[in-house]
């Protein structure tokens, strides 16, 4: 019975992950009433399955259609979609499925072994640590761009500005809300992302004739990753798993930060960084693994401390409470069946998802063969339904449309959307943490360096910022010493 529930969960999760915008939160809230009739263990198994499934499914639309289903899938678009355009959609989907499986299994294992210990380490991340972490993320934002550095920075700055719209966290002052009630919460990440990536991509693509050329070289050369792909992906998968897992454990760390870091790390240590953005397998393997590891990691604060670190975990917590169970430090002692049931189902769920997704790759690749004239209205339809379903409001559809048009012009003039989105996410996080920290320290900025964890990340960020300059200086003195530097 538990197995059946698990399967239903992952199946529905995959479906909702594939449909852009209709994220796991919407699915979970729709299915919450059903969980009232199931036992507590079964409800959690199903809801967790939905969460996992959505993680797997979200990468599908990112790779095939450049439409990120969830925030965390955005990074996958950067190299996944170009791979699909080159006829390598199969390997991309395959690597992301396998990577997700490895990450999921790893994070469940870590949950079992080190859960409570990790949770306590995560607690030591307070506002100053969040500042340093998001600062690190912000320094890596430009790694997302593959074109002009200046343009990436402009887009990042624009993203920071867009992130300011809304209420200020400390005083509640209205910023750029223009008296509109909706803007008090800001513009909303998902509609902007769907607009800049999905809608804009469609608008650009339909500029070229619909019949003349195949948009996707769908004479798919391979359906599965080649040996070379595996060799190239081994490193990214390992690094992505570790990075993603630890970032997921930190309350509020977020899957987006995990996939960003993974992408940036891979690009930085790659022997061919300029190929990123044109369809490298590392650019898909790393981030996809990281966001699944992050998903697994985010269960730890919930199950061991009773702290939900994202919206999905909050829904899970609500479902547990309805059954009279408060997740927290006593969960393992008081409800061991539940705890181990959930852990076991995560293993099983991962296997099920792999088994579900691999055969589907052939099917998904066939989707790309649909003539674009039929495909793009479907994309529009799903995007509109998806963005409406976020808040049951047409406002989000409007935001998506406006940013879709904006994104079209951005693509025309080669301004990239990824740095914008990343700055839009990280900016507010940075500001909140910064103001909290300064309130704690009475305005003394040394708080960021006096605490060990924070100091580490800050030093790392400053190093990353400064090192290209140092390298350039070294290069000037000894020209030809360093290979592979990017030009402006």
């Amino acid at each position, binding site marked *: 019975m538990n197995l059946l529930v698990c399967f239903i969960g992952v199946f529905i999760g995959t479906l909702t992950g594939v449909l852009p915008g209709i994220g796991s939160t919407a699915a979970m809230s729709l299915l919450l009433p059903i969980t009232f009739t199931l036992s507590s263990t079964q409800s959690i198994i199903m809801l967790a399955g939905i969460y996992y499934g959505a993680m797997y499914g979200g990468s599908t639309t990112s790779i095939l259609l450049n439409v990120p289903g969830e925030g965390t899938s955005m990074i996958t678009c950067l190299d996944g979609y170009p791979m699909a355009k080159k006829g390598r959609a199969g390997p991309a989907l395959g690597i992301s499925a396998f990577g997700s499986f490895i990450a999921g299994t790893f994070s469940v294992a870590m949950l079992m072994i080190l859960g409570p210990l990790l949770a306590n380490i995560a607690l030591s991340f307070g506002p100053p640590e969040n500042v340093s972490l998001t600062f690190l993320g912000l320094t890596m934002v430009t790694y997302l761009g593959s074109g002009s550095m200046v343009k990436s920075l402009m887009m990042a700055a624009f993203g920071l500005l867009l992130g300011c719209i809304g209420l200020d966290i400390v005083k509640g002052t209205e910023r750029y809300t223009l008296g509109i009630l*909706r803007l008090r919460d800001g513009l909303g990440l998902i509609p902007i992302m769907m607009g800049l990536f999905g809608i804009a991509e469609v608008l650009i693509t339909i500029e070229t004739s619909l019949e003349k050329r195949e948009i996707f070289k769908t004479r798919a050369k391979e359906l599965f990753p080649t040996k070379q792909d595996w060799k190239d992906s081994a490193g990214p998968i390992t690094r992505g798993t570790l990075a993603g897992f630890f970032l997921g454990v930190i309350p509020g760390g977020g899957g987006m930060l995990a996939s960003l870091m993974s992408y940036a790390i891979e690009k930085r240590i790659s022997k061919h960084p300029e190929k990123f953005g044109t369809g490298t397998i590392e650019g898909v393997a790393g981030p996809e693994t990281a966001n699944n590891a992050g998903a697994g990691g985010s269960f730890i604060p919930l199950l061991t401390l009773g702290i939900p670190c994202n919206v999905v975990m909050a829904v899970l917590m609500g479902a547990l*409470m*309805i059954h*009279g169970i408060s997740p927290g430090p006593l969960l393992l002692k008081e409800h061991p069946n539940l705890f181990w049931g959930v852990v076991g189902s995560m293993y099983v769920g991962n296997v099920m998802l792999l088994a579900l997704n691999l055969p589907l790759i052939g099917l998904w690749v066939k989707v790309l063969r649909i003539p674009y004239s039929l495909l793009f209205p479907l994309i529009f339809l799903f995007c509109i339904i998806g963005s409406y379903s976020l808040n049951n409001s047409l406002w989000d559809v409007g935001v998506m449309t406006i940013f879709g048009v904006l994104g079209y012009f951005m693509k025309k003039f080669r301004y990239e959307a990824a740095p914008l989105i990343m700055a839009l996410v990280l900016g507010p996080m940075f500001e909140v943490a910064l103001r909290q920290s300064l309130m704690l320290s009475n305005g003394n900025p040394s708080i960021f360096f006096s605490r060990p964890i924070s100091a580490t990340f800050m030093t790392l960020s400053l190093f990353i910022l400064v090192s290209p300059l140092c390298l350039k200086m070294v290069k000037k003195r000894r020209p030809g010493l360093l290979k592979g530097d990017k030009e402006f």
Partner: protein
Amino acid sequence: MVNNFFNRRHLVVLGVMLSFTLSLGVCHTLLLAQSFPSKEMELIINFSPGGSTDMMARMVGNKASKHLGVPMVFINKPGGGGAIAANFVANAKPDGHTIGTAGASNLGTLLATGEKIPYTLKDFSGIARAAIVPMIIVAKKGRFDNFEGFVKEAKQKPGVLTFGSWGSKSTSHIVGELINQVAGMKVKHIPFEGGAKAMTAVLGGHIDVAVATIGTTQSNLRAGTLIGLAVTTQARLDDVPDVPTMKESGYPEATFSSYDGFVTSSTVPKDRLEIIISAFEKSMKDPEVQEGLKKTGMIPAFLRGPEYDSFLASNLELLRAVSTKAGIQ
């Protein structure tokens, strides 16, 4: 010939058809007026799924739907701190089929702290108060022995100790400042995005205390990683019988809990409102509903429509007074 074409018989037939149609229309309206509700009802929830308001709304709403005899459709319209949903309900069609959740957030703190909100209390008619949400002051285990110890240290070091709330200008912020005022302390306020984040900060030792709900903190309280210093209710709570109330600690003025309930637009006719109110009354009396509410850390506390109206009004005044005094405007 023209005269014969349109003769008396035709007129009669026309007249019969017309009167038949008219009477159908009248019957339709009469039927509608007599059987309310005549189609599914919409319950607009002002927060995202999974939260305590959402849980409460679904539990109570499901039972009420059975008493009303029509399906209840739950629509989450989060945003604006609950203002979006409230605005929607206030401007909905006055046929009584649209109701919504409202409480200390959208009909309390938002209106009390001088925000530019496009509605007032007068735009709503209360259906029922469903729950009281008590607040508890928590600290990390070992940090303070009890509330007196906290007050003592706060007075010794004004401006050094910190308390976390679940949001700027929220009920927890206002209650925190209220406690500052009545106890004569200067504990710094640090806003967090949600009760869970504030609790995390306390557990990690980054802030000294937090003003949170039982729902968020109950598991850690039971495990002993957090201790409760005081609760803001009239009487001690069953969940945490060892934690004294603010009244017992010597500060009866700091007795204030958050609240949540259901409202509809004030344009809905009184007879329909009565039908809705009685359905919710029956729902609230259901032991399953009461159990469910208690499990999520809320106290079932039913108040009938008109009483909820006065309750909302008086609490709004109180919130206004405190927030002005604390400078939260």
